[in-house]
């Protein structure tokens, strides 16, 4: 059990720290919405470019594609130092953390050369066009259709939802159905979609808080040039699984990125001397803080495994369950203790936290489906009976109609 840096990591940390000391004056200030404020977004893109020049971005990407070719622990060191310096990290976490690595694994050489360098520098921001109104946890149920034309180009129609950054992204990685006569997991293909193409409409999706962190994306007979597919035609499910694996790693590395930490909640409660002495408040806070401590050391365990080259399994998703549960309990405790003032939606209030959590519970797949997955893949329990296996996708709708209660 050792939390110290190896000599090599210690040296790396000093290097990163020195760069940040020198450049942090150029970093954009905190505040403003990185989802809605145009000036904030522009500044964050420029800062991503600076971080990339300094070698603090694409840390685990291969050197051939502009990365640093280093390991996950280097990434953690860089994250820690960026947070310590009090500057923002990169803007396009989804692109660099999940979509870029997917293109590295499955894309053609042309695609890698064209898309990866501007993705890294922040010149081109990416979004993930996977979920649909009727395909969330059951992602393989996507209905967006892509049809190949005689000249090799594609025609794409459908609707995507929960798309972060779509309103200012230049490209999207999109999962579409290319053969509906195959079973649902078989007839899917992954595409690169230019967000400024004719027929692409982006509409912000406002949430409980009133903020729009996500978008709906409508695709109306969008033309994609030949060779827009990433990986094999009808082999998109395997490509999507790669993205989802990097999603788990990104979430794991992000750790306390939301700023939900035991010490922050403790400081908020400690401003009320009466609350600090209240047995019930102490008991509830102790339990919440214990969950957040467990999350921190669970991420250290995962990182240690990752640094030994082991890929985290679906049980890593249980950290999300604990995070959301503990954060909900923290919001409850703060509001119960501090009264209506705690529900302020200003930056120092807790109203936004309380608003965001019910939806976040289903982010990246619902908690219920995640528990099924862990039960089946990790504990080896038999699956629930399902009726979509081996059935051509085109016949599923009729089957669903047949099964719906009269």
């Amino acid at each position: 059990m050792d939390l110290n840096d190896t000599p090599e990591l210690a040296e790396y940390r000093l290097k990163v720290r020195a760069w940040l000391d020198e450049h942090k004056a150029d970093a954009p200030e905190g505040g403003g919405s990185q989802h809605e404020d145009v000036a904030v977004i522009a500044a964050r893109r420029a800062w991503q470019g600076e971080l990339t020049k300094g070698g603090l971005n694409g840390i685990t990407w291969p050197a051939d594609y502009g990365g640093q070719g280093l390991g996950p622990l280097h990434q953690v060191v860089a994250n820690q130092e960026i947070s310590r310096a009090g500057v923002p990290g990169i803007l396009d976490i989804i692109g660099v953390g999940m979509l870029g690595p997917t293109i590295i694994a499955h894309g053609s050489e042309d695609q890698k050369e064209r898309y990866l360098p501007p993705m890294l520098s922040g010149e081109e921001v990416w979004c993930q066009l996977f979920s649909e109104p009727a395909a969330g946890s059951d992602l393989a149920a996507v209905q967006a259709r892509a049809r190949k034309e005689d000249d090799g180009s594609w025609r794409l129609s459908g609707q995507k939802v929960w798309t972060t950054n779509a309103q200012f992204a230049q490209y999207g990685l999109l999962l579409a159905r290319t053969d509906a006569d195959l079973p649902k997991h078989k007839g899917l293909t992954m595409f690169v979609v230019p967000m400024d193409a004719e027929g692409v409409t982006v509409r912000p999706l406002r949430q409980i808080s009133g903020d729009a962190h996500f978008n709906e994306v409508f695709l109306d007979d969008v033309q994609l040039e030949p060779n827009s597919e990433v990986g094999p035609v009808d082999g998109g499910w395997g490509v999507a699984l790669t993205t989802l694996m990097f999603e788990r790693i990104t979430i794991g590395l992000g750790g306390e990125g939301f700023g939900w930490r035991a010490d922050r909640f403790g400081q908020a409660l400690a401003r009320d001397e009466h609350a600090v002495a209240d047995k019930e408040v102490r008991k509830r806070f102790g339990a919440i803080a214990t969950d957040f401590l467990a999350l921190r050391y669970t991420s250290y365990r995962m990182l240690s495994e990752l640094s030994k080259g082991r890929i985290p399994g679906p049980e890593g998703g249980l950290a999300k369950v604990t995070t959301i549960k503990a954060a909900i309990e923290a919001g409850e405790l703060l509001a119960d203790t501090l009264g209506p003032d705690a529900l302020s939606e200003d930056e120092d209030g807790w109203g936004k936290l309380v608003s965001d959590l019910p939806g976040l519970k289903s982010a990246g797949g619902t908690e219920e489906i995640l528990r099924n997955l862990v039960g089946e893949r990790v504990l080896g329990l038999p699956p629930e009976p399902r009726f979509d296996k081996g059935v051509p996708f085109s016949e599923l709708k009729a089957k669903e109609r047949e099964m719906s209660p009269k």
Partner: protein
Amino acid sequence: MNFTLSEEQEFLREAAQDALSRVKTIEAAREALEGGELPNLWLTACEAGWPGLVVSEEHGGAGLGPIEAMLVFEQMGRVLASVALLGHVPATFVLDAASGQDELIGRLASGETRAAFVPARPPDDQVSSWTVDPVFGSSRAAAPTVSSSGALSGTVGWVPDAPGADVLVVVAVAEDGSPRAVLVEGLAVEETWRYDATRSLGHVVLDGVQGTLLEGVDEQKLTNAFFLEWALLAAESLGATDRALEVALAYSKERFTFGRPIGSYQAVKHMLVEILRLAGNARSLMYYAGWAGNDSPEEFPLAAAAFRLAAGKALDDAGRTQISVHGGIGATWEHDAPLYFRRAQLSRRLLGGTSDAADRVASVLFEQARAAA
């Protein structure tokens, strides 16, 4: 960073599992509830070197840290083994620091002599004095007092492994209010037990007892000895949790209802995954406590308290779920599940209980918040 067990630690754990597998400890736990005698596992412990785990090598011990002790306790917890180490290990942790006790600590390290720790709860941000568990009720009792000549007075309720111990290491408060370690030899403590017959408990009555004040033991040592006992209890609970999950899991795969294994139903699956989640959190906190015990002793109280709360919750959940998954049969005397349930119920209430562990986590973080403000 390397937050995994070393090869030596994995080996220690396997060796412990192996040593304990030679005795039918779970059957013995049931028989003990019916008045049967528990197998004497002290010899097994001595052969494996467990009594001296945290004793330094110069005193004849293994010179290992809290994490290694926790790994052994985890294995003991899995099979509900009754070994009088919960009292012994924290006692040796204290005595190892005392000066002029080399001969005694040598005998404790080999297991020739058995010690028990009579703990006191360190002060926190709300309670400025050292306290102990009362024999009855919810109000904390004052820790025993000790005079400058070593005369003790006071009573400590529900002390694990005190009956039959050759020596007691008592935490008592001196006239100037500072905590002191006091060695008591040959004090007979009557054995009592509640609900879980594998756990030997006793009320230690110290009025008129003459002890020896130990030199060289500072306040941090006594504080961490208390939290070491919490961490060991938590490790035991984590081991029992893992075993309860395995048994429930196996049954959920072989028991069919309405033509399907019950483990295929979401309702059952989700309950089992919940144990996995709680146990995973507790395990991460065990590693945290193990790391802090070696590398960051001032963090050990927070780490051990969080571990205790998480492991206590995990075992409570696992104990109940194990019974539910088995249906009616899980609630019968013949089944092993009730033994794990009994273990969960008592363990959570010993040494101040898991609610005090939650309170301690809050206390440390509130103190940190005040310091940061």
